[in-house]
């Protein structure tokens, strides 16, 4: 198992390639479908024997799917907590899944664009992630994978309520469609608060993660649908995509304004961020995220020759704590992690000269 994870640690997910539309601003888009088996108790209440039977049926259906039959099958119980954490950092499992538990499996296809959690809160949690803003395509792909799995599985479904899930917040389509956006300019110009608020009035969810003293860690935000019942999947996707597009336009404008207002100041900020990143010997996660966010903005503005978006995207994921430890092949204390993180960044940036 450890070998598989090391292999993964040495390659990057395909959705980091930054080859999708608007990839300079939209990091990725994701569709998640929740499904349960008709005659099986849902995982939060199920006995081990039921979880076992359910997982066997699902794994069999997976082996018959063109999309997933080549995929890796990972038993969460065989992993250490760092290894589970590694899968979380790669956006392949949920926080709940990192707690481990019997008969919980991750199915992940090689490029990591398609994956499936078995026996999370629902029997199946199918996920597709693509680069940039192409949510409709992401839905179509997940729909096809779902069709194939359904050929061999009997899903819990009621005409009036659609796909039945353990949590009532997922009933209906069982779908969560989301876009992850990088919004440094809207954050700097302090417009982000109002925008997030107005998004939420449209029945969507906007969330950000921000650290002490700074507005956001790495300036990343996520937009997703709130309601899963009563709308067609295409309508949900269309809503999220349309609103995301509007935010993208606003971010573009804000970037342009910042650039026109004071190009020298921006160049100075990028240069300083680069200077710290390429010279530091100790680098915390938080500091790295904030500096890399500046570089990512710089790449968009063409202020950093020799860089491209893909390398930046990959760097965000190369420096997460569990990733560092899996690649190094041993557990590291926070100090050693900061040291290794600084080294990984230095080496990567030097190779671009």
């Amino acid at each position: 198992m450890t070998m598989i994870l090391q292999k993964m640690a040495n390659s990057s997910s395909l959705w980091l390639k930054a080859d999708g539309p608007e990839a300079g601003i939209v990091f990725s888009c994701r569709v998640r479908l929740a499904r349960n088996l008709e005659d099986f108790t849902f995982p939060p209440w199920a006995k081990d024997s039921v979880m076992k039977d359910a997982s066997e049926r699902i794994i069999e259906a997976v082996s018959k799917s063109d999309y997933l039959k080549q995929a890796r099958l990972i038993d969460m119980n065989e992993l250490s907590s760092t290894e589970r954490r590694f899968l979380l950092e790669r956006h392949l499992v949920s926080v709940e899944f990192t707690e481990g538990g019997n008969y919980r499996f991750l199915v992940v296809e090689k490029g990591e664009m398609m994956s499936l959690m078995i026996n999370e809160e629902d029997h199946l949690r199918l996920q597709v992630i693509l680069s940039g803003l192409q949510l409709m395509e992401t839905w179509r792909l997940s729909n096809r994978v779902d069709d194939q799995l359904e050929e061999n599985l009997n899903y819990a479904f009621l005409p009036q309520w659609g796909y039945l899930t353990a949590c009532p917040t997922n009933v209906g389509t069982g779908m969560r469609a989301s876009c992850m956006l990088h919004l440094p300019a809207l954050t700097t110009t302090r417009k982000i608060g109002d925008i997030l608020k107005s998004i939420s009035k449209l029945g969507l969810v906007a969330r950000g993660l921000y650290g002490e003293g700074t507005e956001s860690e790495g300036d990343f935000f996520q937009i997703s649908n709130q309601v899963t019942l009563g709308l067609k999947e295409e309508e949900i996707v269309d809503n999220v995509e349309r609103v995301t597009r509007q935010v993208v336009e606003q971010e573009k404008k804000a970037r342009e304004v910042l650039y026109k207002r004071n190009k020298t100041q921006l160049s100075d900020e990028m240069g300083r961020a680069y200077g710290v990143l390429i010279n530091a010997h100790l680098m915390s996660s938080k500091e790295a995220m904030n500096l890399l966010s500046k570089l990512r903005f710089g790449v968009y503005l063409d202020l950093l020759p020799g860089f491209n978006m893909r390398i930046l995207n990959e760097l965000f994921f190369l420096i997460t704590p569990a990733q560092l430890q899996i690649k190094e092949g041993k557990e590291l204390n926070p100090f050693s992690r900061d040291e290794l993180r600084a080294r990984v960044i230095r080496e990567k940036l030097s190779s671009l000269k």
Partner: protein
Amino acid sequence: MLCQICGKRKATFHFKEVINAEERELHLCEVCAKEKGLSESFFIPSFSLSNLMAGLTELELPVSEEVTARCPHCGLDYAQIRKKGKIGCSLCYQTFKDYLAVLLEKIQGKVYHSGKVPKKGKLEDKKQRQIYKLRKDLEEAIRKEEYEKAAQLRDEIRALETIRNTHHAIRDTSNDNDSSENG
């Protein structure tokens, strides 16, 4: 500011989520954030404050006789489901139909499913398909504010559902035959 989980240590992790113009914040200390798997992490797509807080708040619901009923498949009663905030199995959705209808209306609005339908399984039942279509018509009628038509459709659905329920009860006793047919 103190951590909202332990209430002892200083909060250094701040999460913000806006749903329906309602802003929710969660402030955690380093230890609790780590315990919830949220510290030092790159943005996690599946993370949601509402999920995190689901265990902390109990669902408020009206009382009816369903409260004493137990789901014939998984054996849960509604008090258990309510406490955990998680439904037991697909049959729970029928056993606690009235409860869940109220709950779903609160969370999702007064709507019916209009998305994808599995190709096989339940909808092969002709009556189910009929009900499904009628429900869509009903939704449409309500949207167009054609209330007379809506009332008529609602009666038709009810009539079909009564037939279906008796039919279902008979099928349930011959469960073994059913599963072998499907398998």
